[in-house]
């Protein structure tokens, strides 16, 4: 039974022709660990080249992980900040009248707001024209852009302010020339503590600094102000008594409602002459602006990753060219085309996977460093790390596919002939 052989003349009939044909040979499978081993072998023998082409991938991944990590860390920080500061603060300020003049809030605006059931607290400041100097010898023009405001004694609760030294204005000291300085005001005047011996020249007389405020992240405008009592302002600084900003804390569930009714509440006739704003929104908006920059950086990271992928493809093409005799040998040892293909594919995947792993670690390092510098808690989302690794594997597969196919298509005799 030898259908595979051509018919021969009877005298050349071969004696083994009657033997049954042997079973068809069957190729064995390479185990996964063997695939990883032969793939990794090619990398071990060329460490420098592996390092450099993995570096390309690593930089791309590190850039993307870093951008995502930093952006996540900063969002996380903002959320913590907002949670600490509260998002329920609303400010009410006079706008302009129909005729273009500056409007002013009514004297009882605070009381009208505080009467609403959804409001937890309401307090106000009123801007005075008084100027503030370190002492009486500073020329009048050098007022440093500092504002002196009359403040209610209950202001601190509404603005969420913190005193770092001394005390806030109270019913006793607010009738006397006492002042509490915002953090920036204190810094620019060179004042680091409060006390009866610490005095500033305010509105042509000495005021005693009774307290220093901590920086207010939600209301940075307060940092450059100095606060005096309402009555002393009216008496000594020719303050007109109209509040210029009302600070309102609403119940969390009712913030939107309160936001919409504050205008009509303080100015039933002309609600449009009142500006109502939510400072936490401004903080979030500033953060959102940072995010568009993140998108740009993310794109740059993607480009770096792509370039890294081209580097891997290049390395693999060269690797296949250099290792023709190894390919020939493996074919002679019984490797199928598929097994050669998977060897080089595994090598490309290991190469880019190595880069991806390095990139993730590098990206975490960058995030850690930047977050530490900014004083945030570093946070790299798990999806970014998994996504980064998956992306490198996809790129490695793409980059390795063509070289691997070329290696597998190499005729064994041609591969062995080169040496």
């Amino acid at each position: 039974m030898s259908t595979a052989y051509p018919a021969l003349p009877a005298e050349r009939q071969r004696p083994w022709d009657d033997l049954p044909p042997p079973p068809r040979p069957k190729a064995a499978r390479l185990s996964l660990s063997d695939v990883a081993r032969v793939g990794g072998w090619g990398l071990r023998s060329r460490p420098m080249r592996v390092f450099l082409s993995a570096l390309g991938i690593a930089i791309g991944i590190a850039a993307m992980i870093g951008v995502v990590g930093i952006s996540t860390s900063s969002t996380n920080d903002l959320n913590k900040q907002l949670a600490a500061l509260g998002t329920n603060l609303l400010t009410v300020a006079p706008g302009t009248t129909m005729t273009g003049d500056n409007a002013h809030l009514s004297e009882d605006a605070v009381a009208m707001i505080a009467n609403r059931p959804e409001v937890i607290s309401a307090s106000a400041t009123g801007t005075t024209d008084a100027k503030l100097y370190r002492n009486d010898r500073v020329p009048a023009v050098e007022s440093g852009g500092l504002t002196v405001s009359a403040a209610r004694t209950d202001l601190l609760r509404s603005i969420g302010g913190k005193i770092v030294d001394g005390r806030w204005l109270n019913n006793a000291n607010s009738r006397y020339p006492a002042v509490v300085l915002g953090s920036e005001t204190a810094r620019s005047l060179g004042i680091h503590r409060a006390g009866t011996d610490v005095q500033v020249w305010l509105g042509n007389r000495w005021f005693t600094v009774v307290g220093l405020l901590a920086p207010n992240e939600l209301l940075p405008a307060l940092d450059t102000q100095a606060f005096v009592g309402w009555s002393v302002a009216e008496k000594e600084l020719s303050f007109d008594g109209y509040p210029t900003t009302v600070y309102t804390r609403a119940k969390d569930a009712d913030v939107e409602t309160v936001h919409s009714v504050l205008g009509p509440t303080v100015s039933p006739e002309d609600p449009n002459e009142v500006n109502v704003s939510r400072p936490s929104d401004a903080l979030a908006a500033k953060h959102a602006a940072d995010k568009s920059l993140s998108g740009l950086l993310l794109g740059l990271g993607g480009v770096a990753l792509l370039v890294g992928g081209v580097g891997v493809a290049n390395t693999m093409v060269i690797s296949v060219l250099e290792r023709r005799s190894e390919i020939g040998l493996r074919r002679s040892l019984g490797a199928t085309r598929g097994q050669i293909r998977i060897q080089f594919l595994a090598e490309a995947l290991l190469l880019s996977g190595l880069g991806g792993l390095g990139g993730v670690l590098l990206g975490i390092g960058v995030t850690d460093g930047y977050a530490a510098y900014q004083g945030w808690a570093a946070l790299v989302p798990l999806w970014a790390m998994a996504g980064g690794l998956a992306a490198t594997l996809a790129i490695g597969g793409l980059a390795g596919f063509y070289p691997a196919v070329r290696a597998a298509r190499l005729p064994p005799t041609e591969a062995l002939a080169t040496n």
Partner: protein
Amino acid sequence: MTVTAHPVIELAGVGKSYGDVAALVEADLVVHRGEMLAVVGPSGSGKSTMLNIMGTLDRPTSGTVAIAGHAVDSLNDRELSALRAGTIGFVFQQFHLASGVSALDSVADGLLYSGRPRRERRRVAEVALRRVGLGHRLFHEPQQLSGGEKQRVAIARAVVGDPPLLLADEPTGALDSRSGTVVMELLHELHEAGTTVVVITHDRDIAASLPREVRVRDGRIEHDSGSPGPRALTHTGVGR
């Protein structure tokens, strides 16, 4: 006439041409189990083409080839690869040992495509290395070995799976005469243990020292000192 096995190599009217150039013309050759022969000829005579065809690394353009009873033209790439993995061992002039890989791992790679687990591959590789007299060189890398030792590692790799057919392409071509003698002695030992050994060489002295001599010139088999035939074999059914 009764026989117990297919011939290891059977070429019937085999030709190979590259474009207009005929490298091999109408070659007929039968090699039975347990034989040892030389294919001898000057360079360009077609003996390397013959080796590639016998080793199933290349397909002929005409004629038929059967290796251990398998008609080569009826096998696909996977089956042909499996045939090489299990039936044919190759020894090359340039050794083809990877730098930085120990002798043991190089030899174990000879079984990589056989489907045997790694632990077993390494165990059998050690046996094969001891068989070629390199039991003391298991963990040496190629750069630490002499040319003769490298070729013995390559031979150990070729026979580690105990293939019935060993094809040696100029096995002593890159060696000094003393190492060459050692390598030829080793091939003789393998033959005596039952392996069919085909040595491709341009060296007439080596060819003359083997039991059978096939002379190739200009792509044709010029002379065949003749096969003893399957019945004359003392080692019937040896090998695999």
